[in-house]
């Protein structure tokens, strides 16, 4: 629908794989960083006068 594919990520890490966890967190963060702030699907707060 126009949300960049990189914003939603899936992975599979065993509870013993702490290094993979660190690895994936870093990669996901990098990927989202390059996409920039999310503009899509964000619900703007209603303006209360």
């Amino acid at each position, binding site marked *: 629908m126009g949300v960049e594919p990189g914003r939603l990520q*899936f992975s599979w890490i065993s509870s013993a794989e702490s290094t993979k966890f660190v690895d994936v967190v870093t990669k996901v963060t990098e990927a989202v960083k390059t996409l920039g702030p999310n503009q*899509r699907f964000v619900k703007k707060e209603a303006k209360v006068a």
Partner: protein
Amino acid sequence: MVNYSDKIREISKRLLKDCKVDMIIGFRKGSVPMMNEPHFARTAEDVDELVWDSNCGINLANYLTDRKEKIGVAAKGCDSRNIVTHILENKIKREQLTIIGVPCKGMIDKRKIAGLVEGEVLEVTEDEEQINVKSSGGKKSFKKTEVLQENCAVCIHRNPVVYDEMVAEPVPEQTDVDRYEDVRKIEEMDPEQRWAYFDDLFKECIRCYACRNACPLCYCPTCFVDEAKPQWVGKSQDPIDIRTFHFLRAYHCAGRCTDCGACQRACPVGINMRMLTKKLEKDCKDLYNWEAGLTLDSRPPLDFYRPDDPEDFIK
């Protein structure tokens, strides 16, 4: 398709007389042209009101959910597939049903016709291949194939997949149609274009939920849009709320939707929300080689695990 009405009445009378069923669900003429309405016939007099023509686009599987009585139901290709889905999801038992199969050559698009004639549509009649429209601006005739509903034009399952009686010989299935041309076009867009496309698609939505109510799959006792704690989606016409509603509704139909077109037909502002359900339908076909409602013998892909399920999206 013209002589179907008589045959349906004949079968219905017999079924009611033999006490095979408590009622027949079919169609009767609506109060305005091209708007046949569902009809629940319990007596022989009710049965005389039953009709079948090219305006029976409503999906009758919608009226079977959690019914307790024995029911005879007229079913075209898509209805029968939704009945199969209903049976698989334990919303009705096969034993309760007597399915009157109706081979279908497509339903006509009332909006398209209203747009092609001048003035108000007063009367619509049809013969085998021709639709004759009388409007306040004059008379016009169309070839039926030119005024079909979009989903019917690309339908490849016109004949019922389950039935106990048939009103006529099966019609030939369409083989030379490109079902997903429009979906591919959207797949080729970049996120920017896609966002704009759906913005435009849904800009008229008034959140009336007619699409949800017309859909035989949308039978949840409490729909997610009506939940308040937590509230998943706002109730306003905010563009993001509209998108969230359509997006999640489409996802609930993944692997279940038969592209019967009831949602689009019911929409008062003419939104083609089938673009979302069709994409998921295509994905199910591509990923799991699955088309909803074709058989009672296998479980849908989303409630059954197979070791070779695709998992390329998981890192």
